[in-house]
């Protein structure tokens, strides 16, 4: 692949007290690919997302997004620069409608603030209507447009998961970080979600996907990186990763991960 690298982790280390959640991890995500990040529970996958999105400052190492370092950038600026995520445990704004959830995210690129809103400046008016249109389009794209006026917390579980993706897309990201988006799904829901993720990628996004379901991973990802105890033990084409003895050992060594 000749695609440029969009996200690069260089010797990334994240230490929590005595625990090295990430230990000198190197990883590059290429533009336009679906890269799956797998590994047993506690391997450090979510920590990768947390460090990339600015939730934690890495103990060591560097993160480059489109070639420039994210060091010292606040969380909302990282999001504005083009990285958006979902959460392993759904964390929607439950008291807002589905549409408002997405709108909150689309606001990141709007320029008008409180004064513009209060005095209905032309720019505020323009941005509000453009945001609504865009948020509605995203909900349609994800397939939950019929939910747009319902409170997020009243949505069925599957739609909540999809709304998380829609909200992340609201920030107009280049790179989407999806943290176990199919958790709790049955096989047919998983398949539909896989198709959705491919559709998202095909419309121009890059996807870094944490997922436990191997058949889903094998189906849709272009490349698979494997973490074990905070270290990257493999990074290859799906087929090759599947047969990698280190990977098999990591998974067999932690049989509890079957969940």
């Amino acid at each position, binding site marked *: 692949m000749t695609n440029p690298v969009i996200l690069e982790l260089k010797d990334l280390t994240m230490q929590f007290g005595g625990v090295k959640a990430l230990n000198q991890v190197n990883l590059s995500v290429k533009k336009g690919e679906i890269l799956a990040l797998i590994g047993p529970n506690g391997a450090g996958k979510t920590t990768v997302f947390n460090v990339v999105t600015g939730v934690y400052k890495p103990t060591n190492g560097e993160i480059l997004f489109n070639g420039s370092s994210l060091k010292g950038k606040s969380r909302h600026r990282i999001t504005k620069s083009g990285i958006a995520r979902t959460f392993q445990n759904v964390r929607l704004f439950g008291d807002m409608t589905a549409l408002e959830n997405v709108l909150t995210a689309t606001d990141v690129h709007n320029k008008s*603030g409180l004064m513009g*809103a209060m005095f209905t400046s032309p720019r*505020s008016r323009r941005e509000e209507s453009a945001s609504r249109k865009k948020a509605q389009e995203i909900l349609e794209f994800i397939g939950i447009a019929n939910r747009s006026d319902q409170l997020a917390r009243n949505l069925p579980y599957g739609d909540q998961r999809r709304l998380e993706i829609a909200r992340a897309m609201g920030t107009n990201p280049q790179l989407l970080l999806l943290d176990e988006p199919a958790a709790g799904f049955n096989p047919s829901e998983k398949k539909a979600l896989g198709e959705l993720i491919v559709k998202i990628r095909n419309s121009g996004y890059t996807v870094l996907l944490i997922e436990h379901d191997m058949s889903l991973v094998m189906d849709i990802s272009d490349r698979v990186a494997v973490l074990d105890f905070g270290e990257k033990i493999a990074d290859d084409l799906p087929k090759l990763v599947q047969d990698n003895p280190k990977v098999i050992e990591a998974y067999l060594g932690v049989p509890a991960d079957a969940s």
Partner: protein
Amino acid sequence: MTFNLRDYGANIWARANKWQRYLMALVFIVAAFSLPLLENTFFNTPNTPFVSVLFYPIGLYTLMALGLNVVVGKSGLLDLGYVAFYAVGAYTAGLLGASLKLNTWEVMPIGIALAMLSGLILGAAVLRLKGDYLAIVTLGFGEIIRITALNSPAIGASMGITDIANPPTTFGFKFDLDNPESYYWTILIIIIITIMAIRILSIRRPGRAWEAIRQDEDVAELMGVNIYKYKLWAFVFGAAVGGAAGVLFASESMFISPNIFKLEVSIFILAFVVFGGMGNIWGVILGAVLLSYIPERIRFLSDARMLIFGLVLIIMMNLRPDGLLPRKKREKIKSDKKDSK
């Protein structure tokens, strides 16, 4: 299904067309302006002239409850020092009115601006704190403002400021002891403007940002909300409202002293917000009106005001923890229609 007054009201509003809405708003506003007519009826207050009660405590406390609601109810920032902004507005009126010979309306924008500035300074200093820490530091701020005033001879120290001028006669309306309704109508106008501002902000970017911050500020920030900026705005907006209330209060009472701006006032206003329904404008108004009117109406209650407040809050927190009229709990009517298609 239990009857829900909030949903009932919201339903009527949602089903109405534009003209019906204008009509309803008009009826409400006319009714509010006509309240002084209730003097000498069942609603009359025994200790204080009824129309004065409409201005203070009812009008002023309602206004301040609306301002504090943006901070506490909408954005989830527990501010226990709200009285400080009220004090800044009042002292601005007391000091500038005399020294610069400015009338109430000229002082008003200055009082509001200075209150906003103190909101900005306090916010910048404390908004990185969360929850209980924020509450304690804002409480301290309110007390510091009061104690500073108490120890500053230049602004009257414990004697306060006397002989503050009443507002000038405006559009033929006289502002003096014989015309208490002028004050009430003025505060009513400010309340209506505040309600309109809050409603507009609520359905646009600032309202969404506040709502997101209240529900999960970490996620809000990760979704691109500049949480620090919008928390500051909540503080500054609330401060502006408190400042306006302070200016008007000083010019009506003609006298202010540090004693008036005690922690109690912050607590009262917070109680109105919590009692009425955090985050819901109409709940907050209902809470402020009921809780400031009832002790005036029922004589023996006014002596035991604090005790009653405490009891009411404890009972409410157990029976109806979200307040009389809780914040939005339902979806818009529109979605029902869409689903049935």
